[in-house]
């Protein structure tokens, strides 16, 4: 089957709902145009049925939903840098706390090295020495653990909307 130069004419006639009487002779001779006419009529019927089936929401509803969504997206865009800054601040706080903890550990009084020496010198007093280590290390470990627990909690509370 070959194309026909009168195809647009046939389609236009069907699109405009015109009667095809004036094209009847041509449609009888031209298989391509006859096929187009049949197909276009079928699609027109299908479109009419589809448009009839359509239960579209009201324009106001579509507008309202779009407005809500657009505002939410705008709000998200605005809040992105703030969230990022808060995240960085939280990470810095945790880093600082860890650094301070490490510094405090190194600056522990000489009693710690004395303690090691005393362990070497007097193994029999090991139990006492262990207690001393615990006495110094425990508050520090607890502080560090508190930082690790509190920092994410604080970050969550800072970022939560409500």
């Amino acid at each position, binding site marked *: 089957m070959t194309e026909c130069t009168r195809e647009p004419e046939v389609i236009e006639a069907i699109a405009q709902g015109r009667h095809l009487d004036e094209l009847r002779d041509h449609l009888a001779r031209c298989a391509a145009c006859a096929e187009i006419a049949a197909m276009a009529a079928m*699609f027109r019927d299908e479109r009419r049925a589809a448009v009839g089936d359509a239960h579209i929401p009201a324009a106001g509803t579509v507008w309202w939903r779009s407005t809500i969504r657009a505002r939410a997206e705008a709000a998200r865009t*605005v809040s992105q840098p703030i969230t990022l800054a808060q995240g960085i601040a939280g990470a810095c706080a945790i880093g600082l706390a860890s650094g301070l903890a490490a510094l405090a550990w190194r600056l522990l009084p000489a009693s710690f090295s004395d303690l090691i020496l005393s362990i070497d010198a007097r193994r029999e007093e090991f139990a006492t020495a262990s207690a001393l280590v615990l006495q110094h290390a425990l508050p520090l470990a607890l502080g560090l653990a508190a930082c690790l627990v509190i920092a994410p909690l604080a970050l969550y509370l800072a970022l939560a909307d409500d």
Partner: protein
Amino acid sequence: MTLSTVERFGAGTAEADELFQMDEDAFRLFYERTARSVWAYLSRMTGDPRLADDLLQETYYRFLRATHAPTDEAHRKNYLFRIATNLVYDTRRRPRVDAVPMHDHLEHADPRQPDHAAGAARRVDLSRAMARLKPRERALLWLAYAQGSSHKEIADTLGLKAASIKLLLFRARRRLAALLGEGAR
């Protein structure tokens, strides 16, 4: 993001107008003129009326948010159909499990009404044949014969060259005719 945040940023209607490329009154008029055609197109392109409902909202949302949307009515309509077409293509890339074939409800046509039954049967044949076409072929045929769009408009909508539309349409038509012939046998 909660509703309270949304409410904080959404103080008034004037702000909504600033977010979109047209005001509410213009949108309402445009929507009333185009929504049914767009829904019909989406429904027949996807073969799923429920999906068409979702895509209709998404189409108009993207249209409203477009920063370089055309200003004249004809181009606006083409642009709207272009968005709809892209959404259909995107949807086809994602698998769906709950799609309902569009001709299911047609199969329950009343056989006591011959005209109605014949029309329904024709529609079932067409929808089955359409389902076996490629999305682009489906879009070409729908825009050309159901919408009555010109080759230039089809080219604008589908992002193709106007010169290639005639040949593509011819091939799509031949393929559909072959599928309808298969179905009739």
